[in-house]
């Protein structure tokens, strides 16, 4: 059970080196690149709007494959108007280049549309720890007039919460308030 109140602010210096090139996990460059190397690499690329989780944990990276001597990374944007899409693609390119992979390419894939069902278990746990309630339920069960399931407060765990606004600080989140610990929090909408 997480203790009530906001999570401790994490020190940037403690667990994340300031120099960008140091953040990329070292890859043994004497060996050829494998698909697993790239998955591991991209698991370090964060969504700038939800820095707690990686683009892999969010389910945005759909496929990594070598095609005609190129490493092609299929990326599915979360929302049509997500302003972070370009930045995320740039970050992926940057990560590939810093790891010495020069023949990388990104392909934007719209079908099938991204769904919160693709967020991994680790991703959900990290969202929770970061203070964002992870999506509840399955997107396929969403209905127009359906009532949302009870959303648990990420700070104290209480399901005694209320929705303040259908939209929160970004398009992918809604704004909630916990009626027990009184903290407002973001809920990652089920879409």
């Amino acid at each position, binding site marked *: 059970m997480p203790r009530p109140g906001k999570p401790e602010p994490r020190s940037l210096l403690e667990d994340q080196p300031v120099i960008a090139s140091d953040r990329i996990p070292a890859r043994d460059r004497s060996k050829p690149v494998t698909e697993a190397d790239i998955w591991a690499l991209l698991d370090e690329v964060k969504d700038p709007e939800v820095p707690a989780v990686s683009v892999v944990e969010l389910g945005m990276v759909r496929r990594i494959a070598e095609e005609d001597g190129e490493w092609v990374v299929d990326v599915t944007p979360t*929302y049509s108007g997500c302003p972070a899409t370009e930045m995320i693609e740039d970050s992926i390119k940057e990560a590939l280049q810093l790891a010495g992979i020069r023949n990388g390419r990104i392909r934007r894939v719209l079908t099938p549309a991204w769904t919160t069902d693709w967020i991994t278990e680790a991703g959900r746990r990290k969202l929770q720890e970061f203070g964002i309630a992870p999506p509840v339920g399955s997107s396929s069960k969403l209905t127009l007039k359906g009532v949302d399931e009870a959303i648990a407060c990420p700070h104290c765990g209480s399901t005694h919460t209320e929705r303040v*606004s259908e939209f929160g600080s970004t398009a992918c989140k809604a704004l909630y308030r916990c009626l027990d610990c009184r903290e407002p929090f973001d809920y990652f909408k089920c*879409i």
Partner: protein
Amino acid sequence: MSKAMTQQEALQEYLLRLADSDMILGQRLCELCGKAPALEEEMALMNVALDLVGQARNWYEYAAELIDDGRSADDLAFRRDAHDYRNALMVEQPNGDYAVTMGRQFFFDAWHYFTLASLVKAPDERIASIAAKAAKEVQYHLRRSSEWVKRFGDGTEESHQRMQTAVDDLWRFTGEMIEADDVEQTLFKAGIGPNPEQLAADWKGLVNEVLTEATLTPPPEDAWMYRGAKVGHHTEHLGYILAEMQFLQRAYPDAKTW
């Protein structure tokens, strides 16, 4: 519109309608940035606007590829004048009070929702994929705007009166949204666009249901309707929106020199 309209021409025209309506409503909502009635509402409005501009971009990109005359998605958005715009008259109407803002949103969202629900099944894979993405977003838009219509309608005497006035004032722009012209008929017959009769019935059904629940009186169905947006005849408001939206591109074309 000539009788010999090909399916390709109809599709280009239809994509511009979808894109322009998204773009203009997105632009209208952005006018409320910094002055929405409450912080939560401002965030919601800006997020809805962001979704719409993102969807517009997807439609413009596809339209630009099909039109294939050297114009990019940006050119289509920023270098066409009012008579070339194909957005619904509804979305260019001023924000007014919040009952008008939400009434306009609700009428459009309901049309948008059923239109996208149909386009998801289009055999054109590009259309289906853009629509699938957008449909999920618009579901949230519609949920929110219908909740506001109910809250205002079934709220205080003042909010009820304002919501009824907004519904009555905006009603004249609803007709053209659910009335199919050659373009929409052509696409329906080609198996791409929504069934016009079904769309109109779904729209009316939902609108009546929400207005009734909101204790509002639905205006008469045979009320006189404004038309013209589908061939570029707009209300006076569109010119002002474009003047602001396209200013930078017109003053500094392509902004190549900084």
